[in-house]
């Protein structure tokens, strides 16, 4: 595997239950303040905790984008307005041209919430009631189609939908297009919103906890579902000498089961090894790993064992899903943003919710916040269908 030419991350942002934008994420992480709340979404019928973003309903789209209106695109629009992201994309568009910037977004359910709603109010003939919205709102590409219009981009535009690894894999697709010269920059990211499909779906699989989720805790009993939006702008490294770097990525398949991870974490380990090889790094050089850590019994057991057998005691690792909930198709970009914050601020977020650590967890786990320099940070994302991704980020100027 040849070593990848690092790319610059010239802008990034995240909006989660912790608040809108990076400052809100950092503040909540520093104060160990969870964004989870008792379920108040929809009819709130399921007794569980959720990571809901405040203000989504009030984030009206611009009038000329009204046909794309739905809760998921409102969250996308709210997320795009944070951290000067719109202005930074505009600068890139002026520099390269709209057709030289790709838009690649991950989502698990896109705007299925709008389709659920349409089914709740079918007309007398059993068809969708009259609706001024674009029919494409009822398709997986709804998010990317709206965002490409909102950002006035005209380059390659694609939705990646591999369940909970979706918005990690977008970095890999963008890197390949940049490497081959198809584009000069890429906007990547992902958005998923709370909807009945995932709340009742994960509940049917008996994977939802009635309490706030407790990743890697010995008594964990399931996930808390969250929603989030996050975006990043990728450009060639020479354009931004000070910007943090994407050093590598790895992708692999479990070939085991549709909704249960491989018992030895085979696909996760292959993705991790692929990522380290592309980055030209040894495991010892990794300072922090943001874990997938969903608080499901199986995921955490398999992932903790992988960390224990791969990394030295000095590498720090934690799941931040106790803060945000599991934001599904947006988890990759949210946790990439947290890994980048760890590098930028020399700050390792503690594994919130793990008050009685599972004995399978090694010394790498950061159970509480730590202040320490981070040069290299990884982010793990694993999805249904045995779909695994791992991202490697580094401080600008870091050399292996």
């Amino acid at each position, binding site marked *: 595997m040849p070593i990848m030419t690092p790319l610059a991350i010239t802008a990034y942002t995240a909006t989660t239950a912790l608040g809108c934008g990076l400052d809100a994420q950092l503040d909540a992480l520093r104060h160990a303040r969870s964004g989870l709340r008792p379920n108040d979404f929809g009819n709130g019928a399921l007794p569980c905790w959720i990571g809901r973003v405040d203000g989504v309903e009030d984030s009206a789209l611009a009038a000329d984008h009204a046909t794309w209106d739905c809760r998921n695109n409102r969250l996308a629009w709210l997320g795009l307005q944070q951290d000067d992201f719109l202005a930074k994309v505009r600068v890139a568009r002026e520099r390269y041209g709209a057709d030289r910037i790709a838009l690649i977004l991950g989502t698990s359910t896109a705007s299925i919430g709008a389709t659920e709603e349409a089914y709740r109010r079918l007309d007398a003939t059993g068809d969708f009631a009259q609706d001024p919205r674009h029919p494409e709102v009822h398709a997986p590409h709804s998010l990317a189609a709206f965002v490409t219009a909102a950002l006035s981009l005209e*380059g390659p535009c694609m939705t990646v939908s591999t369940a909970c690894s979706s918005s990690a894999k977008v970095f890999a697709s963008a890197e*390949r297009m940049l490497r081959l010269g198809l584009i000069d920059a890429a906007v990547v990211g992902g958005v998923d919103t709370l909807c009945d*499909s995932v709340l009742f*779906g994960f509940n049917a699989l008996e994977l939802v906890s009635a309490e706030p989720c407790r990743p890697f805790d010995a008594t964990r009993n399931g996930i808390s579902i969250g929603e989030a939006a996050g975006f990043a702008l990728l450009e060639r490294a020479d354009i931004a000498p000070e910007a943090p770097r994407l050093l590598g990525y790895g992708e692999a398949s479990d*070939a085991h089961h549709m909704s249960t991870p491989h018992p030895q974490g085979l696909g996760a380990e292959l993705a991790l090894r*692929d990522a380290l090889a592309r980055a030209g790094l040894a495991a010892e050089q990794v300072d922090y790993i943001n874990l997938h850590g969903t608080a499901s019994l199986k995921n955490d057991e398999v992932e903790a064992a992988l960390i224990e057998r791969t990394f030295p005691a000095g590498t720090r690792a934690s799941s931040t899903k106790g803060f945000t909930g599991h934001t599904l198709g947006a988890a990759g970009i949210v946790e990439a943003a947290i890994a980048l914050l760890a590098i930028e601020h020399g700050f390792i977020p503690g594994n919130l919710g793990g008050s009685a650590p599972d004995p399978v967890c090694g010394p790498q786990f950061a159970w509480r916040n730590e202040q320490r320099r981070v040069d290299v940070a990884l982010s793990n994302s694993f999805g249904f269908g045995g779909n695994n991704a791992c991202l490697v980020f580094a401080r600008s100027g870091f050399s292996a």
Partner: protein
Amino acid sequence: MSALRVCVEGVGLWSPQLGNFAALQALLCGTAPPPPPARPAAATLPPNERRRAPESVLLAVEVAGQAVAMSGHDAATLACVFASSHGDQATTDYMCRTLAQAPAELSPTRFHNSVHNAPAGYWTIATGCHAPSTAVAAQHASFGAGLLEAVTLALSDQRPVLLVCSDTAGSGPLRKVTGCTQSFGCALLLSPTPGEATLARLALSLTPLHVATPLPEPLARWSNTNASAAALPLLALLAGGLGCCELRAAATLGLHIELENIA
């Protein structure tokens, strides 16, 4: 940007009228091929999985299996890209109907089958494939966007890649919204370098405006019945031998494809 060049080493195809790529070739030569059985055989799946799998999975696995068999590659080592505009529409219809009426009765199996990467999951499980797999969508540009993803993966990592693009017919009220009135699936085995199984080489470049390639009947009619049937201009080109076509790669972006002679 110079053109991206990849070799095609296998083609899979399934619709209610065409059971494989040879049927398309026969049709274009003036012979009416016999229609395939009502349900794709999807022989790559073990029998118990074949019974459980939703139609979208059977369709994708059927065309994937055809393309891989034609190429002679080992499926276990192939990176794969599964594109679909709408995913499994029968499952989406079931989910939304159940959630509107009795949400607590939602089936856990149908929920995990509802993920867009269900075909990629079933395929990698059935073939023991640990290589990278992905699932993408781009509305009516799903084939073009999926092709771009597969080609960039094949060229950047210098490995053969399986591309599948498929959509099932719509179900329930969703059918009128998606406009998919019949199933269509196709697959290409793409390799960065020519080999014994190479059928043709493609030279692909992005163009700012999409100009639709005209198709003969009945292909033109079929191409309006399913989002994935946007692949038909390229499939017809591969069946015919030489020439060029243009596909949609995004809402405002075309993908110009020249079929090159490698002899």
